[in-house]
């Protein structure tokens, strides 16, 4: 293993400039090259840095394992390249092709330098596996950065989707929308209780018009929210109970008897106003 790896290192070191020139020529003529997204100078710089990094790592380290410390600078470079390219709009395939396209010039060079067929086959195999791993590494990085984006968006949604609004002096409304999984319910409950303290509201309307499914877990979360609000001195009204939800709740056997419920937010608002002592008169 050691003998073969030194050969590859030696060849890359000896012909680095040559390889680089051919590689860049290869890339600029390839269909995956995106002159609209990246200047040639940038491409030149990335190629130079990567080849340089590979040369250094190959001279010092193992060729079959890119997770070692010798490859750290190469990994960092690829990290930066894939993230940068993903930001400017390259697809993961295009970024991986950046690494894979080094195969062509490298293989031709190996063929020219090594005469013995067996040794050549060994070198080609080693180089191929190495470049495959580096190419796949860039794909992994792009995937990871996408997952980070998704996670961040999920966090954003937690914040966004649970506004508590003040409808009237002392009357709060919490319009719930979407799936009430436990992480979101926690945020909802905290927001509501916080707002009750801030405003000193005596009545809170929890509207579930936008909640598609009310199963026992959702019902339990609602009951807990109501109980917590009550402990803080606020009465809760649950509104937005559609006919199908009402029937389902009855079949489930959930007892919402202790809570005031209304079909619509408007009806709940009227109840809230009456309880807070306001009177409504229709103007002519």
């Amino acid at each position, binding site marked *: 293993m050691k003998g073969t790896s030194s050969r590859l290192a030696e060849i890359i070191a000896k012909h680095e400039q040559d390889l680089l020139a051919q590689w860049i020529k290869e890339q600029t003529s390839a269909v995956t090259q995106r002159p609209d997204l990246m200047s040639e100078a940038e491409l030149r710089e990335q190629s130079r840095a990567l080849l340089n990094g590979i040369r250094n790592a190959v001279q010092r380290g193992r060729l079959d394992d890119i997770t070692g410390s010798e490859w750290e600078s190469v990994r960092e470079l690829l990290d930066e390249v894939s993230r940068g390219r993903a930001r400017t709009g390259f697809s993961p395939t295009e970024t991986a092709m950046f690494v894979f396209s080094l195969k062509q010039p490298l293989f031709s060079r190996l063929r020219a330098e090594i005469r013995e067929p067996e040794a050549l086959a060994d070198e080609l195999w080693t180089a191929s596996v190495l470049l495959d791993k580096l190419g796949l590494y860039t794909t992994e990085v792009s995937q990871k950065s996408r997952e980070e984006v998704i996670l961040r968006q999920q966090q954003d949604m937690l914040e966004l989707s649970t506004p508590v609004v003040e409808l009237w002096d002392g009357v709060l409304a919490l319009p719930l929308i979407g*799936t009430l*999984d*436990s992480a979101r319910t926690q945020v909802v409950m905290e927001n509501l209780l916080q707002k009750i303290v801030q405003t000193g509201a005596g009545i809170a309307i929890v509207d579930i018009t936008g909640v*598609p*499914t*009310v*199963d*026992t*877990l959702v*019902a*339990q979360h609602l009951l807990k929210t109501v109980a917590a609000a009550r402990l803080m001195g606020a009465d809760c009204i649950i509104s937005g109970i559609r*006919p*199908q*939800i009402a*029937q*389902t709740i009855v*079949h*489930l*056997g*959930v007892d919402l008897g202790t809570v005031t419920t209304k079909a619509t937010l408007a009806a709940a608002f009227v109840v809230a106003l009456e309880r807070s002592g306001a009177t409504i008169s229709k103007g002519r």
Partner: protein
Amino acid sequence: MAMPVVKAERCPVRSGDNVVRIRQIVRQWTVELGFSLVDQTKIVTAASEIARNTLDHGGGGEALVESLSEGGRRGLRLVFTDKGPGIENIDQALKDGFTTGGGLGLGLGGARRLSSEFSIESRTGEGTCVTLTRWK
């Protein structure tokens, strides 16, 4: 008895997201079958209950959603399987208010009431299989 299955789909039940996905599939398929809004909501809710049981008590498993057509009637069948600890006493588990997990204890019994046909098979230490069907 073999029931004519029009189409079927397997879904993993490994996370809360999977439960949401199953609800969406069930909702979509019942709409395709022409279920009324009430029937849609019933079977979606039942699916949600059992999927969450599979996840929380069975340690995760798999759901099989099948669209059925038999004679003139059409329906949706859901089969949830897990390799969890199993249910020791099924009668007790079906009783309203009985819970081991801090919930309301209505999920299993509620799901039975929301389905047209409902069956549980369970062996302690081997796993549980819950089958529920809702006809149009």
